[in-house]
């Protein structure tokens, strides 16, 4: 079998199947990772007392342990306490927790960077603390968190390959199966790497467009270099 036949008849169809699983993993994880990340950051920054402590502890635990360990616990450990996840669900749950914890730190950093005056002015108008956070502080903080959040999204694309360790045949897993069956390691893994590169490139371009679209006119981000 020549390389072209291997590539087009065997490798690419297998990788395509794996890619679909990878995209499903990301699509199921990222939105919740962002939503929980926002909730955790706000809870830690403004929750006070027990809520703040809970958020801080959650982030500490996730940051302090390998994601792979978390996946093993969810998939192999949880059945012992009566919770059985499919491999796909266990992966998604693990990714959401991990993604949320790191997103929360990027968002918290951005929340801290918003000057107190914004909150004070909102409260002086009769807004509740929650309204001030929701309508004044968060919209500004999320803009500032975009570079960090996009970084974390790119990590998610890549650490989604850990799902393979708990039997989900995603992109990396699909590549590995083909590689070991046909003994064509370099070719298979190079192709897998290219697919990840394409995913990351698409993300980078999309984030650039997003950043420009939500930039606030008159600020550094909202002004093109030529105008400065």
């Amino acid at each position: 079998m020549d390389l072209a036949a291997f590539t087009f008849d065997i490798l690419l169809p297998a990788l395509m199947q794996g890619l679909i699983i990878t995209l499903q993993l990301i699509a199921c994880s990222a939105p919740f990772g962002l939503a929980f990340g926002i909730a955790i950051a706000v809870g830690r920054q403004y929750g006070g007392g027990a809520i703040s402590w809970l958020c801080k502890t959650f982030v500490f635990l996730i940051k302090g342990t390998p994601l792979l360990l978390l996946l093993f616990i969810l998939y192999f450990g949880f059945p012992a306490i009566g919770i059985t996840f499919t491999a796909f669900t266990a992966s998604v749950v693990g990714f959401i927790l991990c993604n949320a914890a790191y997103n929360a730190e990027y968002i918290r950093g951005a929340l801290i960077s918003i000057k107190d005056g914004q909150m004070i002015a909102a409260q002086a108008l009769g807004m509740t603390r929650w309204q001030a956070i929701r309508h004044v502080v968060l919209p500004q903080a999320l803009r500032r968190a975009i570079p960090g959040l996009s970084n974390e999204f790119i990590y998610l694309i890549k650490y989604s390959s850990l799902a393979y360790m708990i039997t989900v045949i995603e992109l990396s897993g699909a590549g590995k199966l083909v590689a070991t069956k046909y003994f064509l390691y370099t070719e298979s893994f190079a192709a897998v790497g290219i697919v990840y590169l394409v995913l990351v490139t698409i993300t980078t371009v999309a984030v650039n467009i997003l950043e420009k679209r939500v930039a606030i006119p008159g600020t550094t981000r909202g002004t093109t270099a030529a105008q400065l």
Partner: protein
Amino acid sequence: MNNDIVLRVEDIHKSFGDNEVLRGVSFDVRRGETKVFIGPSGTGKSTLLRCINQLTPPDRGRVWLDGEEVTNSGARINYFRQKIGMVFQNFFLFDHLTALKNVELALLKVRGMGKAEAREKALNELRQVGMEDWADHYPAELSGGQAQRVSIARALAMDPDVILFDEPTSALDPELTREVLEVMKKLAGEGMTMLVVTHEMGFACSVANEVLFMENGVVAEQGTPDQLLHDPQYTRMKDFIGRIDSRLGD
């Protein structure tokens, strides 16, 4: 101006750690009145304003608005804050919103007004301060004077009973100061009740119904602009004004 008391401030005390910033401040504000607070920096003028709308809750003392107690009002404080507008030294416009949206936001979210109505009211307030042509500009695109006028419109939009001005021109150069003071003068002329912390003596003398001189956390002297300029008993206020004038090389 009539004799109807809109705001009553009684024996306000406030300390930050060992630093006793306010040591018993009391006064009444009648509807339509403009009171100007002057005095050296660090004598509690700004803290006093923040104690009125509870952005800084006082340690002791009470505040009433239209006969209702503002202090210890719990969640109702958000109602009172709508009725007590505030304008800050550094404007504190919402940086991510246009001038129009800055004025609209509290109308939509706090007053629960419909979109069309809020927009119309916001545009109207911007017109009041001469900023309607800048409705679609963001804070970063405005001069300091323009930004401060938008923030005045934002306070006006809530139809407040009284507006607190916390050194509204201290961050502005003389030219921009003038355009903001003109707006404030106009508001005073239209019968808006205002408490103004400022170092602008010209404004104080021409607009204030009463000038309160604060020193060491208390109102040391108070009187009409006329009294403070011509009555020999107001020695400390005169000293202070003299110091400002000599600083200016007068």
